[in-house]
């Protein structure tokens, strides 16, 4: 497992070792230890898992270790990150095969003898090392019709009750880390479904807008309930709940967004009473 190439061993002890790296550790030296990491390095043309041995201090998270690798052993190791506090959703990766935010994965959850494997997200095209091309998500974001403001209300005239905005507010906690999109087997295991399926994050966006108390899409002729199924691939979801499991914000994606959206689609498409009512009242379905 831990067979290291000579060059890595050399740079390990080379001049790049910063005085500060030790300084940081000195605050918690008693519990510092060397951990074994396997990090995927490569690009679209290929790559492999490389072994590293790297210092870990008390209270650190996986992202700290990746940064230490960058600063001491692999200066060109590509990784995305921003806030380091679980708020921006940039440092998504797969740690021991599970989609996680690196900044929110504390080293203390692993045993000291564990080998910790870090790979890029495996549902998206790889760019380099831990960085993937998440463009899929931005394309899907564009395919969801935006909020339609009510025509009769100007800025400052919006009145909404807290209980009416609670549901959509839960979905707006989303930090767009795309871990749900990564873990969802509909696209993770079936590249060909990417054209037809928006993924949990953007189906949740449809639900958010459909539950927005002042969204006037219906009045403008857009029925989010049926387009969720017809255009955003709601039917592909088989509610196996991996999206909810990985969500770092703890959003109940399946129970509060996807299933209610499925039920709303049923209202439109499979409920004969509703269907009949709509026919009679000539409402757009």
């Amino acid at each position, binding site marked *: 497992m831990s067979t290291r190439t000579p060059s890595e061993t050399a740079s390990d002890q080379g*001049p*790049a070792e910063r005085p*500060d790296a030790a300084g940081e550790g000195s605050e*918690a030296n008693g519990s510092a230890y060397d951990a074994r990491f396997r990090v995927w390095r490569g*690009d679209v043309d290929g790559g492999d898992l490389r072994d590293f041995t790297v210092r870990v*201090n*008390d*209270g*650190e*998270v996986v992202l*700290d270790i990746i940064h230490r690798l*960058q*600063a001491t052993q692999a*200066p*060109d190791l*590509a*990784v*995305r*990150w*921003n*806030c*380091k*506090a*679980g*708020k*921006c959703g*940039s440092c998504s990766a797969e740690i021991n095969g599970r989609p996680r935010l690196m900044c*929110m994965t*504390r080293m*203390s959850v692993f045993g000291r003898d564990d080998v910790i494997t870090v790979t890029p997200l495996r549902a998206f095209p790889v*760019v*380099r*090392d831990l*960085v993937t091309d*998440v463009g899929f998500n*931005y394309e899907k*974001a*564009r395919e969801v*019709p*935006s*909020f339609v*403001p009510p025509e009769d209300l100007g*800025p*400052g005239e*919006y*009145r*909404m*009750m*807290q209980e009416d*905005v609670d549901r*959509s*507010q839960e979905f*707006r*906690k989303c*930090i*767009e880390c795309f871990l749900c999109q990564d873990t969802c087997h509909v696209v993770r295991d079936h590249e060909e479904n990417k054209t037809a399926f928006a993924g949990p994050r953007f189906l949740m966006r449809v639900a958010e*807008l459909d539950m*927005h108390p002042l*969204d006037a899409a219906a009045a403008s002729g857009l029925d989010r309930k049926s387009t969720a199924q017809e255009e955003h691939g709601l039917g592909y979801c088989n509610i196996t709940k991996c999206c909810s499991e990985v969500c770092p914000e*703890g959003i109940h994606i399946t129970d509060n967004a996807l299933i209610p959206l499925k039920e709303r689609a049923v209202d439109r498409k499979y409920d004969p009473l509703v269907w009949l009512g709509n026919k009679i009242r000539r409402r757009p379905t």
Partner: protein
Amino acid sequence: MSQVERQQWDVVVVGAGGAGLRAAIEAREQGARTAVICKSLFGKAHTVMAEGGIAASMGNVNSGDNWQVHFRDTLRGGKFLNQWRMAELHAREAPDRVWELETWGALFDRTKDGRISQRNFGGHEYPRLAHVGDRTGLELIRTLQQKIVALQQEDKREFGNYEARLKVFQECTVTRVLKDESASGDGRVTGAFCYERESGRFFVIEAPSVVLATGGIGKSFKVTSNSWEYTGDGHALALLAGAPLLNMEFVQFHPTGMVWPPSVKGILVTESVRGDGGVLRNSEGKRFMFDYIPDVFKEKYAESEAEGDRWYEDPDHNRRPPELLPRDEVARAINAEVKAGRGSPHGGVFLDVSTRMPAEVIRRRLPSMYHQFKELADVDITAEAMEVGPTCHYVMGGIAVESDTAAARGVPGLFAAGEVAGGMHGSNRLGGNSLSDLLVFGRRAGLYAARHAAAPDAARSVDEAQVDTAAAEALRPFSAEGPRDGTVPENPYTLHQELQQTMNDLVGIIRREGEMAEALERLADLRQRARRAGVEGHRQFNPGWHLALDLRNMLLVSECVARAALERTESRGGHTREDHPGMNRDWRRVNLLCRLAEPADDSPTAGRPDVRAEPAAGSAAPVGGLAAAEPARGRIALTRVTTDPIRPDLLALFDKEELVKYLAEEELFE
């Protein structure tokens, strides 16, 4: 080098945080074809970290609020150093900017009657912050992001292309603002030189207007709440383009950052913790803030714990607790407690909500704080106190701009908005005023940038030689200069850490003349070594290379901070001098402008003691003395300028007794 791709746009916005996106929306709605360039992915900007809220005097919770009160609070917070016209525009326009967000789909927390709820915050007289739990910044970014998508969907319907008139270039960095430098030109902006982080490919955007909205400089400090992006890019781009920076000595240290574990040291603990009832205690269990109420605020704050506690329920008949003093006061107080040996085990003080509210209320009102501590520090804030200490949070200084148009002074076509622009917040920013600042001046920058681009004489082409120079500069880390004494190239990560340590230790929250002089020497040394910063690997997504390029910006900006801080011999807001502890009324009217002391190209003579700076351009005389002392004299020249007098009707909003504390004699009699 001529193969560098060129694209033509009307307005380029550098930065996709709140200000950048708001500017882009405005420019696009004005009809300008607008490009947004950002270092991270779209929607990841540092604005998401803003927790508390957006300050706007809508008066939904307390109808006594109006723009005049907001203006007054802002000026008090900034210790009257604010560019008053900006503060006025900000206070007047903030409510409209917030309401506009609702029409784009934002969902703020509501009052009982269905309006936008507003919360209390440090330095604001009334509950004023529109908020969404403690993730207001995320809501702001997402709303703006989704508005941009909405505009792109419009374009898709109209032109068949989402990006016909508004395009976001994600994960790209601008290294130079390009200007018309021909003999006949007036130095106007012609575009920007950029590289794609992912591929390392260079490209040039030709555009008559460039809006800088790059945020702050926190990554020059070791303990900071800022993300890696905050390397002062916009500040440096403006400097290099010939625009001055204003009052760079004012750096806000947020009083409550996490202090443990080390890996998250500096990460913010929102002020709402205190706004909602959290209190600060030292190791002796004492609520020490009552000992630190400065004279200018004596009448506004509670004198006893009992009165402070009553205020949460009955703000009209009680004064607020001193935990809600402006950030600079609280940060200094914490610093003093720790120095006096009354700190917490990890070198902070205790911030406690667990004894003040039921656990379930804490989880509902402060959900992301609860999670942040639970997951990052394994601390349950409903059961025990947090440990907090000051962290570098915000720079009040920035690009000197015209108040109404957000245009950078002296460079036609260059605009700045948000944290990168200076003046609005004076010497200290109030919490909540940053998000409203982004919206108000983001919109103004977009508006005037679009107008500038629409002018018939707008510049359209970029000079080939400038592109080649910029490309050579960007590639230099791959062929780092051969060191004279045979050592290896410098590691950019090491340089960065030394820079952060220098700024933290020597130009930090409490400043002393000798230390700052030493900082300037160290910065000069780092500048020399940065020229030898080399990187391994290739140009494709290479963080070492990116850091090496960002170092130029951090070094320039750090020098501005250190030099201006050395010059201002008083303590005010975000600038505290141990050797000049008092606020000096004569300094109120003085603004310090930083300019590049040399030609804009990064010539090898930079920082060498034998090269004398040209006197800085500008109306006022360059400052001699310390700033020019050898060998620390670097690339920045300081000038002092006197601010315009505050308009009489705005001054009339204050009591005479209050003005006496801030304004110099001659100002009072004018």
